[in-house]
């Protein structure tokens, strides 16, 4: 797997013909690109910015066409937290997302280690079997998964929200690719020292995984924080509502009051946008790697 995706593409070095004309041409090209991409970017992020700024507007100006509120207010947020148990929603989302992320990273890396570094009969078949589950996307198995979780008696429980979200081939696949590239010498020394496989995994493989774990952790956390469909069908108990369900039902009760709805949406979106702003480099890199073969 190519690993130099982080490198920025540099303009091809050209033969030194007429350097003056060359640089001015290049400068013009670069400023054209800046303007074109700049405009597309502004149009793209505009709806997100609009949501955030509108959530600070009063009821009389939420539908105005001005970007910034003339009298910024936090009343909308106060209303959101007093009208619905948003603290509870956020807590539930956090517990579910954090648990899934930690357990999934641990389990996925164990399987990936075995698939990448250990020899055993049936390895390729097992890998292919795991890989093929990538074709089965969540909405397609929503119905039978609901029936299975119902039969296990896990509907309306944290376990019912958490367990089905842990297992996916995506993390196993990416971690396996990563572990395949680790040089064998690192393990051989440990084997000569008589280390068992668990020791090797724990004290050699895991410490090497820090960077990929960080990238995957953000992706897993975001995916679970943003999950809506599974919590919708798996929970009816209001104490177990996650934040996405919370804002959806909040909107049903406050349809006309956009300033409240947007404040609620901002509450649900800000943690994801913050996580993205902080870890954007890692996220972007892991998305790019995941696309490769």
């Amino acid at each position, binding site marked *: 797997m190519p690993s*130099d995706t982080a490198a920025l*593409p*540099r*303009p*091809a*070095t*050209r033969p030194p013909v007429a350097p003056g004309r060359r640089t001015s041409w290049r400068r013009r*090209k*670069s400023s054209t*690109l*800046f303007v074109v*991409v*700049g405009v597309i*970017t502004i149009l*793209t*992020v505009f*709806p*997100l910015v*609009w*949501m955030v700024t509108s959530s600070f507007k009063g009821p009389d100006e939420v*539908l105005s*066409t001005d970007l910034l509120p003339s009298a910024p207010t936090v009343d909308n947020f106060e209303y959101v937290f007093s009208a619905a148990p948003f603290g509870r929603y956020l807590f539930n989302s956090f517990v579910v997302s954090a648990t899934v992320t930690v357990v999934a990273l641990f*389990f996925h890396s164990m*399987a990936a*280690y*075995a698939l990448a570094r250990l*020899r055993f009969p049936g390895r390729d078949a*097992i890998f292919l079997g795991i890989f093929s*589950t990538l*074709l089965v*996307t969540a*909405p*397609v*198995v*929503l*119905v*039978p*998964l*609901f*029936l*299975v979780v119902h039969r296990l008696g896990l509907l309306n429980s944290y376990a019912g929200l958490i367990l089905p979200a*842990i*297992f996916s081939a995506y993390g196993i696949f990416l971690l396996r690719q990563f572990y395949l590239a680790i040089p064998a010498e690192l393990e051989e020394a440990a084997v000569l020292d008589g280390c*068992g*496989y668990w020791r090797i995994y724990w004290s050699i493989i895991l410490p090497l995984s820090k960077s990929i774990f960080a990238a995957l952790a953000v992706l897993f956390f*975001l995916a679970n924080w*943003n999950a*809506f*469909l599974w919590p919708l069908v798996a929970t009816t108990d209001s104490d177990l509502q996650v934040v996405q369900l919370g804002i959806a039902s909040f909107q049903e009760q406050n349809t006309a009051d*956009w300033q409240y*709805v947007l404040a609620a*949406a901002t509450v649900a979106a800000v943690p994801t946008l913050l*996580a*993205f702003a902080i870890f*954007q480099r890692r996220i*972007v890199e892991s*998305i790019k790697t995941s*696309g*490769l*073969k």
Partner: protein
Amino acid sequence: MSTPTTSPAEVAARPGAHRAGDEARTDGASARARRERRAAYLFMAPNLIGLTVFVAIPMLLSIVLAFFRVDGFGGYDFVGFANFERMFSDPYFLSSLGRTLLYLVVLVPGLFVSGLGLALLVRHKFPLVGFFRTALFAPNVVSLVVVALIWQFLLTDDVGFIARLLDRVGLTAPSWLGDPAFALPTVMVITIWFSMGYYMLIFLAGLQDIPREYYEVASIDGAGPWTTFRNITWPLLKPTSFFILLTSTIAVMTGGLDLLVILTGGGPANSTTLVIYYVYQQAFVYGEFGYAAAISSFLVLILLAWSALLFALTKGGRFTHAQ
């Protein structure tokens, strides 16, 4: 009688000793292999159990359920192919299938072109390009519920931002989400809006893998941008294009359900009831689990056929290119 330099005992012992050593080694090796095997299965056990219970069994159950009628009280009646026969005489299913086809035909190329177009722009180095790449991906990190709420707000009839903007230039905005003629195109535009950044990043990774020297040579040869794109970028980007065609088809066909549930609820007048929404509706609104399972099995079958076709057309996703 010459004195043997080595005693018979030693002679006898030596091969024996060798054999013993070999045996010890093979014993050690096989013991090691056994230990390795056992460790591997233990390492994989949590995932294998989890994937079986939460992915494989539901998938198989989906196929089995397709042959049953499930009543509201958890009773299962075997009905043979009745659910499948019902599918093809169900006008609502057939129209949702046609709609999904239209959706695919517009969105898969739409996502491809917007993703590739953006990637070709942001592959160059210019001020703030890193920021632009990140910002273009930003709509992808908020949930589809938030996406739905934002657009409902912006597209509100008469008083929404977009309606007012059009009003200012003397145009009357249609009811974007209330008019059956406009609802599906609106959903398509919103889908492109939040997914194009993702496809841009994947294309960008593919573009950055193309050796720079190729472009240098083309530039020395005086090739224009179009020739360079057609002869270098396009052929070398084929593996990425293949990956994107495959994953975007799956995503378009089965994803976006959250968006439909919140944004349109399949309406107005069923104009946004795509197959995946119809499955959801049959199962969780009407309790028709068997029928829903038949339709989703059919969906998986189509996806498998599409993947197989793509693999066949591209010879297993491998592309031979002059390296």
